[in-house]
């Protein structure tokens, strides 16, 4: 194996990890604050991609596509949380069944509206092409994804660390009951976190739609990845989501490149072992 192979595969893994971070960081916060097992999170990714696709085709603006996808799916998230999930606090089985029910409905609606053909979200010309660094070639779009993930990650970190709303969210992650006790409006915090998580997943869907495409089944394809990231990193932990995304992105890429027959095994088996040793994930607290 040449050095180029390792550099190229590492970069592919990192950029895929960056996309996973967009998808999973919101899921992790949702988990952390509400302990909700949201199996519809992959659907947000797919629906975001479709909404972004339609807007991009109509307006020829990638920025508008990203915004529209995030806002539309954020609203969907608000609706789900307000009308349904709020009734099922601490009922794990109920949450699982409810969110999978929504996932199936979303899947079918997407099929109804956008049909069964795969599409690619059109991306601006400035993001196409490649750059050469030394002997290695890097697609600009993948660099763009990494930059977006870094910006979003830094933004989340600053928001969580430096703002009042962020402090409330952290308090709710630590101990929702205690937070409620000291006067934090936990239902409000939950709603904001849920909407934000859905919007981020949708943003990931639009951006991912630029190189992975948008197609039926994308929802359940990315869902396990998002779960693995959250599980490995630990519920409600932003550093955990970063570490988990990178780890999963790299494991997935090298697994597929080196052991194609066992590629999912090389992804999920290490996770199972991590969990067995640290049931709360790498950065999670019990």
């Amino acid at each position, binding site marked *: 194996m040449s050095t180029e192979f390792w550099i190229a595969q590492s970069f592919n893994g990192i950029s895929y990890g960056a996309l996973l971070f967009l998808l999973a960081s919101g899921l992790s916060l949702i*988990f952390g604050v509400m*302990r909700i*097992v949201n*199996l519809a999170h992959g659907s947000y990714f797919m629906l975001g991609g479709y909404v972004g696709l339609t807007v991009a085709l109509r307006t020829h603006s990638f920025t508008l596509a990203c915004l529209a996808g995030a806002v539309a799916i954020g609203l969907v998230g608000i609706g789900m949380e307000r009308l*349904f999930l709020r*009734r*099922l606090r601490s009922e*794990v*089985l*109920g949450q*699982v*069944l*409810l969110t*999978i*029910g*929504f*996932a*199936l*409905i979303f*899947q*079918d*609606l997407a*099929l*109804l509206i956008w049909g069964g053909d795969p599409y690619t979200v059109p991306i601006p010309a400035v993001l196409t092409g490649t750059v050469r660094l030394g002997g290695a070639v890097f697609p600009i779009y993948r660099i763009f994804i990494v930059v977006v993930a870094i910006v979003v990650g830094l933004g989340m970190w600053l928001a969580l660390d430096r703002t009042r709303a962020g402090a409330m969210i952290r308090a709710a992650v630590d101990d929702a009951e205690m937070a409620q006790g000291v006067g934090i409006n936990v239902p409000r915090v939950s709603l904001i976190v849920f909407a934000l998580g859905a919007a981020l997943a949708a943003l990931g869907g639009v951006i991912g739609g630029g190189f992975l495409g948008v197609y039926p089944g994308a929802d*359940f394809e990315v*869902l*396990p990845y998002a*779960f*693995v990231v*959250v*599980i490995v990193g630990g*519920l409600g932990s932003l550093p955990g989501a970063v570490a988990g995304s990178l780890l999963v992105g790299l494991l997935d890429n090298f697994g597929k490149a080196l052991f*194609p*027959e*066992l*590629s*999912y*095994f090389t*992804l*999920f*088996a290490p*996770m*199972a*072992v991590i*969990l*067995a040793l640290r*049931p*709360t994930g790498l950065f999670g607290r019990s």
Partner: protein
Amino acid sequence: MIVRRALLAVAAIVVLAVIAPLLPAYPLTLLTQALIVGILAMSLDVLLGYTGLTSLGHAAYFGVGAYAVAIMTTEKQAGLIPCLVIGVLLAAATAAVFGLLAIRATGTYFLMITLALGMVIWGLAFRWVSLTKGDNGIAGVPRPSLGPLELSGPLPFFYFCLVAAAVAWALMGLLVMSPFGLGLRGIRGSESRMLALGYNVWLHKYAAFVISGVFAGFGGTLWAYYNGFVSPNDVQLVTSVETLLMVALGGSGTLIGPAIGAGLIVFLKNFASVYTKRWLLILGAVYIGVILYAPSGIVGALRGRRR
């Protein structure tokens, strides 16, 4: 009470046996499918309804059993008994290994670990192409014969599955009523009290996990024969979640309820997909409806809410 319920179930089995020859081919096929999936749903109920463990990867053991049969029959032309024994043993071994990783966790963590472990099996089915044929699945699994008994026709195979489901139901029914089963219900009620009473709670849960995997694997072996085709779809997350739906719909902690739930979902899926392309929409609505309007399930509601 227990005697009356057992008599009801026996009567149901007899009725099924009597009406089977009168049924057209399609409903008979669906009934066979319902029996097999019913075994899977009952096996999950042992964990979910009786022990209080929400497994989100139960299709894994079902899938291991199914793949074992598919590979052994198509590659080695193995007979029914070796296939059943090895399929069930492999499912048990998978559950024994996965249980070691999963049982330490509780609540949401248990759910996520079982999800991840289920994905391990799905990943192998999907990618280990030289063994599983990957996405294409393994086709051409022949219907079995048992000594001189040819089970390939729809009716003989139905009777075979009816006997298998009845035996599985009886064994699991004894299990949940036994002192061991009482221990499982105790764990669901209060783990801390069970520890204080002197139970090795871990061992009880682990045993339940493996036993549940055994029955799920048994269902899987029958599935391979029934469907003639095994693919990664049989072990995917949606299959595991659908099993949870069957348990919830029929009534968790009632054993026969999940089997009824399985039957309803099998018929609903098949009929809905005949009459409309939008059956996923209907299935999704069923999920949401069950959770919002029938949380104790059909049998749970019939027996009066004890929870």
